């Protein structure tokens, strides 16, 4: 069983976590300005990186959402951030 680092609870079993998508997938704003293509890109298109990735995860047991840096090839979970710390580069609303 792999351990993932929760920024609030520390290392916990992977089965307690839920994948929440790629970090930095920013919702397009403004109803008239958003084209079908932009909206589809936001909803469906992904970088799906091979190697180092930055992802949003939820630790279901404490209910907190956070950002984790992880490698998709060797599965090493490098580090995780509370969203308030990772703020600037995670692309989420602040």
């Amino acid at each position, binding site marked *: 069983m*792999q351990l993932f680092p929760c920024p609030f609870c520390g290392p916990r079993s*992977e089965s307690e976590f839920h994948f929440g998508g790629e970090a930095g997938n920013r919702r397009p704003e403004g109803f008239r300005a958003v084209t*079908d293509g932009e*909206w589809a890109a936001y*909803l469906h298109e*992904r*970088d799906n990186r*091979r190697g180092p990735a930055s992802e949003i995860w939820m630790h279901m047991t404490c209910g907190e959402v956070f950002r984790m840096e992880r490698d998709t090839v060797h*599965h090493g979970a490098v580090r995780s951030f509370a969203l308030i710390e990772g703020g600037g580069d995670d692309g989420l609303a602040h």
Partner: protein
Amino acid sequence: MTRHYSAFSLVKEGLAGQTGWQQAWRSPAPKPRYDILVIGGGGHGLATAYYLAKTHGIRNVAVIEKGWIGGGNTGRNTTVVRSNYFFPESTALYDMALTLYEGLGRALNYNIMLSQRGIVTLAHSEAEMETAARTVNAMQINGTDAELFGVEDVRRVLPLLDMSPAARYPVFGGVWQGRAGVARHDAVAWGYARAADRLGVDIVQSCEVDEFIVEGGRCRGVRTNRGEIRAERVGMVVAGHSSHLAAKAGFRLPVTSYALQACVSEPIKPALDTVVLSPATGVYASQSDKGELVLGGALDRVPSYGQRGNLPVLEEVISGLLEMFPSFRQLRLMRQWAGIVDVTPDSSPILGESPLPGLFLNCGWGTGGFKAIPAGGTLLAHLLATGKHHDVSRPFDLDRFARGRLIDEAAGSGIAH
């Protein structure tokens, strides 16, 4: 030299000490230019090359593969072929594949060991039985075979299944598709490779794409570790690595890569002569011709390019199987492995021209690519040869995501991914 496989050639070679068999396919160096280049030597890629040569008469074709042919998901699946989907578009696609599978051994002169032993998808509650009836109706209306099974039917085909009142998941019935079954996965890749090679297709292994050659906004070929290869049209058939290559070509795909794992038990005498799938326990199982039980389950819920599975899902699969078949409790596992599958938001594949003109896609099969190999090959070959969609592939174009015309089989047929 013996080229054709038959009972006669077996006897002849047996008497001659097995010395005259011809190599099944050549290993040529890549030429600098082809009419059509296919990236990816799995089942879909090799089938594409075969149908280009066979159906469309285009023989100046190469398949390039970074590893060895059939070494990716084609060699890592659980060998099930079926067409029990919900939407008409899906049935047209997967039934085309199943129908081609039915004649494939003869067409390729290669025994793919197709065994149409039927698949039963179990229903574990009254509500699931209603859904099962709806699925059966949809499949019959869409023109493929399906039958609604009651408890006694399930007992007849699965005598070892725990159907006692104490069972954790009581069985109410299920969906039966009798034409479904299993085929030898390696043989499908090798059979297509051999048949394509005989028609003049170059199969180049250990050949990895570094970058795409783009001229005038159009894909003109690729640069590889074995040199530059140019082509009029290029097909990309690389399953779980589609996003990785798409990034090199300058676009993104609606795909997330996950590991899907499977395992086999030690071989035992025949005990399970159909394919069984239980959505409640998250397990499907069949028994191979060698006697091993072949098990699979849901995706690992962690995006991955590492070709190995994680423990939580393996535990779930095995405990699910034992819940259903307590008599398998004493079996030992022999092997466990994983393949990287390309999952789309609607659990349906992507077939069509990519955002880079001249580059065509066959990807997004997710957890169900093996069953679709003959259709995926036929349809991509049609696209590459004509530049236009086949009627069957049109709904699966990449444009469906912006148009909102998703073919949501996750909701339709209840496949988990």
